[in-house]
């Protein structure tokens, strides 16, 4: 199919040439694919954050309903949360560096940044799972009280996102390795970057509301 057949009215006034970036408010035709893909993924991320906000609301409402069981002060250790927070923040940083390296078509640094991101994400997930295992071992599982149900729901949902993100990350590294810097690979990488940064933003909410407010004097 020729460019003329795809766009008979030449809405994209560049004539459909490759590599043309015709963007913005209808001037010069529709936005580039990179912009529309990024925008669509941004909308998804916002809806995901709204999903999280439901869990946040449930936690805020149920946080004091411990049913005579252990409360936040008995369960949460600040050291582990501090390490988790540092790991996730650093992974957000390395993920951004990988994105910049990919923009500059530097395969080595892009892969190194993604690898660092994945390892820091794995550290985070490992610490979180060990915390869950410890709590369940102490008899403070999700079935103990409304507070613990809300806690496992909220923090577990975030952990699930991190786990899925790690799978995505591995896939991206493999695709980058095999296919190189093709436009669609770069777009996926951009979406992954957005996803990972958004998860870090959600974690800011979690460590503030769940962990720090839970142990605040």
């Amino acid at each position, binding site marked *: 199919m020729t460019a003329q057949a795809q766009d008979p009215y030449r809405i994209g006034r560049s004539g459909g040439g490759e590599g043309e*970036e015709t*963007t*913005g*408010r209808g*001037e*010069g035709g529709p*936005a580039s694919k*990179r*912009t*529309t*893909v*990024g*925008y669509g*993924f*941004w*909308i998804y991320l*916002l*809806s995901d*954050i*709204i999903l999280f*906000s*439901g869990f*946040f*609301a*449930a936690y*805020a*409402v149920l946080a004091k309903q411990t049913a005579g069981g252990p409360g936040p002060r008995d369960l949460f250790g*600040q050291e582990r949360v*501090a390490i988790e*927070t*540092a790991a996730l*923040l*650093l992974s*957000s*940083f390395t993920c*951004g*560096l990988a*994105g*910049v390296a990919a*923009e500059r078509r530097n395969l080595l640094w892009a892969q190194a940044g993604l690898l660092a991101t994945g390892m820091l994400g794995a550290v985070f997930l490992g610490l979180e799972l060990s915390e869950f295992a410890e709590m369940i071992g102490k008899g403070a599982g999700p079935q103990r009280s409304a507070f613990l149900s809300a806690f496992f729901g909220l923090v577990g949902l975030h952990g699930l996102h991190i786990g899925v993100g790690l799978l995505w990350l591995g896939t991206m590294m493999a695709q980058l390795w095999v296919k190189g810097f093709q436009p669609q690979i770069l777009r996926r990488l*951009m979406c992954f*970057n*957005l996803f990972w*940064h*958004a998860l*870090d*933003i959600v974690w*800011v*909410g979690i*460590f*503030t*509301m769940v962990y*720090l*407010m839970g*142990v*605040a*004097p």
Partner: protein
Amino acid sequence: MSEHSDSGDTAPGAEAAGGEEFAGGIASYAVGLALAALLTAAAFLVVNVPVVWRPAIPMALVVLAVAQMGVHLVFFLHVTTGPDNTNNVLALAFGALVVLLLIGGSVWILSHLDHAMMPMDRQMHGFP
């Protein structure tokens, strides 16, 4: 990517105007990391060291968290007030509105219900 005119849209997370904006490139991520680390450290400090008046600690934590989310949005996600970001900012504003309504509304309504409800022990034994 680098061909944007100033009237074009940018994808969220993409840098506008050939990286000439304030929060562009690796420097942006470094500044963002430093600020975020600072705000995180401040949040942990507020909880562990008596620097803030006790009843104000939750509010101080909320302020620090909102500030850190702002830092993440600007320096990591490159959401700016520039004309190329109008759509992204509008979508974000709507998302923030829904989040505020959901969390604020739930907490508000349920705290009122909780307040208006009779304590469990009195409910079971009737009025004194």
